[in-house]
């Protein structure tokens, strides 16, 4: 009996260690971009706009700028914010799920590292969604499928212009991001 319990506890411990070590990389993905920071951002923005399913751009933030304003240096980190009313609506209508607005809008970050290369950082929407029950899980599976299309690039097409700020939205205040659907 003691051996069974011991084995069970040891199994839990091993799983806990594995989860602790790998949960981060399961929840988030990082892939290398063949383009520079600005062009990667512009191509993702274009893909979002062409994705359909209610997707639109909510904004573009540069997380490095406040640090620069404070006299420090970090390599550029641009965060593309995108939202789909088709997917956000059902979640925001449900009082028991409204706390998930913390995850909105969807963010895709594009950044440079010290190797001089550009990377794309993504959240694993399907996995995270599955943690919140079947309704959210089902919606987030669609989000994940669309998200995968956002990072498919066609190098034969010329680089589009990067869209700065929040397209079509008020410059600040509660209206900002409204055009992005969230």
């Amino acid at each position, binding site marked *: 009996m003691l051996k069974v319990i011991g084995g069970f506890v040891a199994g839990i411990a091993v799983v806990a260690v594995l989860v602790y070590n790998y949960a981060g990389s399961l929840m988030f993905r990082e892939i290398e971009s063949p383009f*520079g920071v600005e062009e990667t951002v512009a191509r993702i923005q274009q893909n979002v706009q062409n994705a359909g399913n209610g997707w639109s751009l909510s904004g573009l933030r540069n997380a490095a700028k406040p640090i620069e304003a404070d*006299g420090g*240096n970090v390599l550029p980190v641009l965060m593309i914010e995108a939202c789909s009313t088709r997917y956000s609506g059902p979640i925001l209508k449900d009082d028991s799920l409204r706390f998930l607005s913390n995850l909105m809008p969807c963010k895709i970050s594009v950044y440079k590292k010290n190797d001089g290369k550009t990377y794309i950082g993504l959240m694993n929407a399907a996995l995270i969604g599955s943690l919140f029950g079947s309704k959210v899980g089902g919606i987030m599976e669609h989000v994940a499928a669309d998200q995968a299309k956002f990072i498919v690039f066609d190098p034969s097409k010329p680089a589009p212009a990067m869209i700065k700020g929040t397209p079509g939205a008020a410059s600040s205040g509660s209206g900002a991001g409204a055009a992005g659907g969230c």
Partner: protein
Amino acid sequence: MLLRFSSLLSAAAAYVLLAAAPAYATAAAKPEAMIAPQAQAVGKPVSASTADHSKFKELQKNFTSGPQVTEACLVCHTEAAKQVQHTKHWTWESTDPKTGQVRGKKNIINNYCTSPVSNEKDCMACHAGYGWKDDKFDFKVEKNVDCLICHDTTGTYRKLPGYAGHPVLKRVEFPHGSGRFVEPADLKKVAQSIGMPSRSNCGSCHFFGAGGNGAKHGDLDSSLQHPGKYLDVHMDEKGLNFTCVTCHATSSHQVSGSRYNVAAVVEGPAHIRGKKDESPASCQSCHSDKPHHDKMGMLNQHTDKLACQTCHIPQYARNEIGTEASWDWSLATTMGPDGKPMVRKDSAGRRAFDSKKGTWVWDSYVIPEYRWYNGVSTYKVIGDKIDPSKTVQINEVGGGPNDPDSRIWPLKVHRGKQPYDKVNNYLTVQHTAGEDHTALWHNYDWQKAIGAGMKAAKLPYSGEYGFVDTEMTWPITHMVAPKHDALSCAQCHSKNGRLQGIEGVYLPSRDNNKWLDMFGWTLVLLSLIGVLVHGSLRIYTSKKKG
């Protein structure tokens, strides 16, 4: 005696405190009263200069040309033009003191706009002179020295391509067809408002080299006109607020510090003001070659291998302006789908393609490349033979790990593809700018452009041209980051660190010695065995006793 002195001192201190008390109380009630009494300012603020040029009789004329202003300047500053005429800003020529090679814009071919020869009317917008439009320019005429381009403080004095260095004197649309206009300068007002060169004066040329903001150097662009601390700790507008000439100290109009004569190694203590020095425009001039605090003394042991810039400029072009990484001339003359010249911008709005000039690739926040460098660059000058089967080095940086005058430097490497004579094997000079029928940007005809350029350069042209890959290196020395943003140890001391390509130096954590590693690990293993054996024996003996 000592007691008496201390009681006197206490009494004096008490008197000062008592006397100050009412003043402090009043000041607390009225904050403005805390300001120390000063002489009342009357009229205009007092200038830092001892001369008000608006009062000078010679400068009361309604000048109609640049040379007229210079003639007026020379009435008082009798030697100024002669001094300028001995500088690179005037001659566009420089002789390497170590190799004797004669370089300078006039003589080399770079992989940006290539050469000013045959394009003088455009290029001389950045010449500190008036009227250089062809090879007949007289370098001895003093009135042709342009004082205002460096000393204007109004910001209204503009020189544009196409005017052979003369300023804009009538309203003109620039660029042509853009709908934007440049207003003429009021030469009288400009002449009366001269001062020390500001960042804008130097930047009007040095920020916009190669025809674009930030295009050429990578560590110089218009963001340095109003820089924040993150961008340059010395030029920080709200901090030290250095101008260019704070470091590039000038004597007899000779501006110190140049990429043609880089002080790759400066040893010894910080310098004393007024000391004669060939290169005060170095970090060590102020910081010495042992700049780090005793607690970080280990860093001082790096200064015999590393340039300061290597750690303290972790990236260059640290803004959205960016810098050009490459320029491919081979696609110039390619027309758009409608058969007409076209331009295209990249995602950040920077030039990406122009039928006149080819294609560019830009980058921002660029990680430098690192090489040994002793400050000597050997340039390809007009007519130098090349091997077109290899990438042509526009300038080869000298130095190596065994050269005591070398340090590891951060560099911008600009890649190009540019025309060369396929028979004579040298880079070609091409007539690009202008409205005549041989100008590339007018007629889109390489043959005519190269023919005219080579004729102006007085070099034979075979009539056959091709395009060759080229590289040009630029030492990075501006955009010094705050100290907490310098490279960390691990950014170099690691397998895939910044200095992975640097040879000739043992870099712990990047390099390893098989025998040393084996010895170390054997020691670790023996220690572990020793601990285990010792521990086991202790347990065994204690059980035996117990």
